[in-house]
């Protein structure tokens, strides 16, 4: 494919659409946005050079609407489609549709996606390639009874998982048979709404493992390298909250070993492009293949920080037939941590809090990166993922990176909606996190501590502030009445007094 891309359609929304468009702009490529009716006012629509509506708010009818997206690509004359993450990014049928339409898909070939995208098929492939996997089912269940029988066999706790995609969606841990039905139903319904595919399988639930993943990159000439790991054990409801690299539990030997296995996994399916091989690491530092995400990962910025690379630029290069510029692993430089800022209320069981952002101030200064898809005045819609920003930092050491991220979080101001900003700060200050010794059970175990106790001094400040604030409201009202009585400030206030 020696012809160079000129125009890229980004088949996504929110921060990842903005992220991809940023690199496109730096490369001098035109961008095309697609948007649902609920996203007409979204930032990615304005950021793009062209924009097409692809359907109503529900993602099934818009961001998962393959035909509408291909139509927009044809209408705009786009050379390629970048799928971001989620939505159609791991949908092999969409890759085939792009191929058929003569539009490049920025991602792996459909065959590699087939092998890895369906999680159960991936497991069989890995077993064949000699990659260690977590004990579990090799294919989705046709009926709940089949699933129940299997769960009985491997023994509780088990993990129900969507076969069609990752990112914590359609995943449910089940402790006992009594909970099986509701978890099954929830997993299937989330799987359907997230991936358009409600196939669900299950695995033995490893007790409090670490979640460590390896970033891999392959070109179409058969070269494949890894770009180190990301530690993603700070999860709640299987949703990553904080990610970092290097992982505090890896040493160079384990990194090299896991990297080698990840590259072998990718090569075994003829992988091309950016991909992530996720592993569970247990307390003996044995590691098991969990799944491969065949697209750009949410947490890719931490890898960019310590390697100095632009992974989206690499994706576009490789999609145009370019070769990887080097093939030796790159030692990580310094340390990077990312925190996901969500529109949600940690104190209310992380209830999402859509609504209008009344005021926004984003942190800045040395080595702070904000990847966001929102703006002051934006109404966070209730139809999509509640993540509003990824805040990441770099520093020479892990200790300094934690301090820097804490500092950056303290500068973040989001008014109008509830966010998890304070909860994120609490994680960074928790002794287990500071020590670097936390597994996937950490956030659940530490939940009450992370919600935190009020500081008595700040409570006093708040009371004094509120009293003076009430006083000022009263003074303002009095001034209005006084000036209305004297007629000084026009007829509006006279009117106001009577209300």
């Amino acid at each position, binding site marked *: 494919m020696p012809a160079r891309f000129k125009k890229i359609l980004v088949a996504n929304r929110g921060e990842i659409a903005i992220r991809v468009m940023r690199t496109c702009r730096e490369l001098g490529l035109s961008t095309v946005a697609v948007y649902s009716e609920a996203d007409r006012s979204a930032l990615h629509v304005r950021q793009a050079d062209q924009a097409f509506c692809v359907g109503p708010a529900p993602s099934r009818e818009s961001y998962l609407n393959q035909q509408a997206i291909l139509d927009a690509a044809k209408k705009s004359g786009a050379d390629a489609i970048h799928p971001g993450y989620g939505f159609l990014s791991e949908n092999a049928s969409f890759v085939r549709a792009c191929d058929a339409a003569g539009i490049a898909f920025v991602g792996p070939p459909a065959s590699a996606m087939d092998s890895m995208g369906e999680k159960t098929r991936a497991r069989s492939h890995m077993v064949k390639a000699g990659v260690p996997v977590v004990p579990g089912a090799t294919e989705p269940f046709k009926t709940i009874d089949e699933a129940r029988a299997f769960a009985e066999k491997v023994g509780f706790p088990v993990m129900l998982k969507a076969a069609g995609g990752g990112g914590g969606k359609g995943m449910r841990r089940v402790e006992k048979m009594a909970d099986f039905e509701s978890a099954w139903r929830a997993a299937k319904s989330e799987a359907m709404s997230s991936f358009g595919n409600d196939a669900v399988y299950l695995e033995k639930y490893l007790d409090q493992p670490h979640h460590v993943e390896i970033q891999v990159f392959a070109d179409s000439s058969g070269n494949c390298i890894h770009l180190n790991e990301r530690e993603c054990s700070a999860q709640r409801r299987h949703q990553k909250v904080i990610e970092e690299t290097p992982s505090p539990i890896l040493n160079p030997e384990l990194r090299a070993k896991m990297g080698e296995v990840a590259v072998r996994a990718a090569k075994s399916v003829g992988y091309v492009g950016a991909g992530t091989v996720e592993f569970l690491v247990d307390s003996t530092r044995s590691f098991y293949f969990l799944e491969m995400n065949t697209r750009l990962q949410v947490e890719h910025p931490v890898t960019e920080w310590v390697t100095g690379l632009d992974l989206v630029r690499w994706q576009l290069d490789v999609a145009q037939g370019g070769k990887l510029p080097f093939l030796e692993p790159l030692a990580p430089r310094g340390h990077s941590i990312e925190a996901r800022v969500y*529109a949600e209320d940690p104190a209310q069981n992380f209830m999402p809090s*859509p609504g209008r952002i*009344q005021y926004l101030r984003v942190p800045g200064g040395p080595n702070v990166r904000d990847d966001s898809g929102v703006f002051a005045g934006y109404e966070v819609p209730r139809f999509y993922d509640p993540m509003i920003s990824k805040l990441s930092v770099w520093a020479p050491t892990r200790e300094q990176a934690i301090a820097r991220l804490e500092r950056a979080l303290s500068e973040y101001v989001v008014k109008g909606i509830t966010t998890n900003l304070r909860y994120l700060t609490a994680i960074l200050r928790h002794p287990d996190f500071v020590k670097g010794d936390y597994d996937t059970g950490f956030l659940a175990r530490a939940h009450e501590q992370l919600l935190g106790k009020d500081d008595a001094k700040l409570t006093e400040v708040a*009371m004094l502030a509120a*009293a003076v604030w*009430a006083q000022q409201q009263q003074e303002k009202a009095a001034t209005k009445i006084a000036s209305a009585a004297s007629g000084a400030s026009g007829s509006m206030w006279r009117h106001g007094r009577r209300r």
Partner: protein
Amino acid sequence: MKTTRWFASTRKGEEPKAIDVTPLGESRYAVTLDGVKHELESLVLPHGAVSLILDGHSYAVEFEENQDEVKVLVKGQVTRVDIADERKLRMRAATAGFSVEGKQTVTAPMPGKVVKVLVKVGDEVKEGQGIVVVEAMKMENELKAPKAGKVTEVTAVEGTAVENGAKLVVIE
């Protein structure tokens, strides 16, 4: 200058504390709480935030008003302060006990879709028991019973969209 007495409490049922506020001009006030006098300068910024200097210490404060309650954000801590003057306090005392007893209505805390209704009229529920599952922003959220009691009314219908504040279930 004239001193106004305000009453502030941060927890339901807590005895309110008296705060005396005396204006000193140009956004500056003398404030007294628990017998300690402070000097407080409170500058309201255009976007509604307040820059507070309390005895030389600086605080960036954000306010959100919610009926009688003010949400105060200082250094990441959100404190809900119930603030009242004497007149208001007396009025409240007169109407106290009005809504503590009686039925509890479970409402939708956010717009979304009712995925599952887990109770029916007549069920006895425990405090904290799951009642309704509402899907919003691709996550399912289980609403729990605010108190033990009997379900007297179920308005939630599976598969329907609900707006913020919509009545779902009544427990008595």
